[in-house]
């Protein structure tokens, strides 16, 4: 008999369907990076650092009228239950790509032709929704680095367990869900930059889930903005 992931409105970690895990974010993790941040959704912990805009070699990688954005998502071997071999695997490469696509629309890349911005994302502890945790950390690092942007990028996960739509999937929920969605947007522009879904959803469920994701991202956005401003408001 398959264990129920939600009963009496409570999930296995006690949360309600529309409750996210405790969030924590910090800036200035890497002293010599242009910008860096850590972000946590419950037990998923990620650190991101940004270098650049800086010179890009070899020359053939340069774009004449735009900055290049390179993202590398990587999981530390100790971040998961079953040790993960170091180095990029197919999943990490795909996540690196969608992370880059989630952030590019927000950056004024045309202001730094021929240069590159390199973002490195390390998952230190994995408990579901690591790619959106990584995007939130990288977005903070990018803003702190001073690169010109249209808006922050905020990300979260939504899914369906036991016929209920939920927000912020933990590891167990991620592996056993009927559907899960990774979502990112530029909150003040109302524009979606990351949307991945797998599972089975009707069109209506899919659209409802996206609306939920949007609303939760806007809450996380307020927290991100607060963290960035606090760095400068609490000097000394």
């Amino acid at each position: 008999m398959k264990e129920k992931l939600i009963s009496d409105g409570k999930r296995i970690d006690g949360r309600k369907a529309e409750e996210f895990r405790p969030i924590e974010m910090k800036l200035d993790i890497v002293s010599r990076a242009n910008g860096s941040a850590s972000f946590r959704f419950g037990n998923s912990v990620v650190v991101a650092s940004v270098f650049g805009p800086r010179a890009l070699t070899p020359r053939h990688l340069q774009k004449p009228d735009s900055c290049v954005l390179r993202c590398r998502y990587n999981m530390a071997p100790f971040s998961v239950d079953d040790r993960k071999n170091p180095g990029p695997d197919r999943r990490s490469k795909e996540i690196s790509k969608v992370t880059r696509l989630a952030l590019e629309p927000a950056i004024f890349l045309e202001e730094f032709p021929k240069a590159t911005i390199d973002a490195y994302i390390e998952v230190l502890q994995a408990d579901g929704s690591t790619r959106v945790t990584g995007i939130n950390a990288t977005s903070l690092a990018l803003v702190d680095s001073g690169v010109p942007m249209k808006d922050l990028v905020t990300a979260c996960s939504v899914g369906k367990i036991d016929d209920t739509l939920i927000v912020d999937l933990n590891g167990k929920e991620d592996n056993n869900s009927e559907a899960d969605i990774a979502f990112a947007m530029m909150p003040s522009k109302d524009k979606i930059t990351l949307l991945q879904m797998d599972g089975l959803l009707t069109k209506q469920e899919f659209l409802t889930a996206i609306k939920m994701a949007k609303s939760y991202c806007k809450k996380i956005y307020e927290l991100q903005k607060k963290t960035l401003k606090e760095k400068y408001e609490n000097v000394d």
Partner: protein
Amino acid sequence: MEVRRIVLPGELVDKRNGRKLWSGVYIEGDNVFSKVLGIPRITENEISVIPLSGVYRPRVGNRVIGVITGVEISGWSVDINSPYTAFLPLVEAVGEFVDKSRTDISKFYDIDDIVYCRVSKVTKDKTVQVNMKAIGSRRLYNGIIIKITPTKVPRVIGKGGSMINLLKNKTACEIVVGQNGIVWIRGLNKAKVIEAILKIEKESHVVGLTEKIENMLSE
């Protein structure tokens, strides 16, 4: 402690109302948004946002401190603390006639030399040229260099040079500040200068900073 208002990318700074827009902002309709984490500057005629961080973006006319990184046939490559390396052409650096085919130009400037120069050209694809012709351009001997956030340089210089003069007077050091965020210091009290400059960098947006620095240097 009072700080100036801080804005973030995507935050509404003000309505344009026909004003001129400088750097750090973008426009949608009549709404002016910030592009950076910074301090908005809003006057009757202009709107801009001064970033609190960010790399140096070369502009023609900037006086910068660079480090020679390469000696070529007709000039030198110069690291100006930017994603873009600058080129110092021989003809823009040396007053006398030089026969390139016979001269090893490293006798004028060699790798690791520090120069105070002027940005003379920035093309659309960010090819940057500097020259040593502007008054005050020279090689900076001895001393040390530190890097600060380029956008904080005006604060280190202060209104009419008030801050930099305070630093020079109180520490008896020679100080040259490049608009590219490189500061050259020579003298016995270097440590004091560095401490003060790093404090200015960290608290550039705090009101009453000049007084704080003065107190710090008087100790």
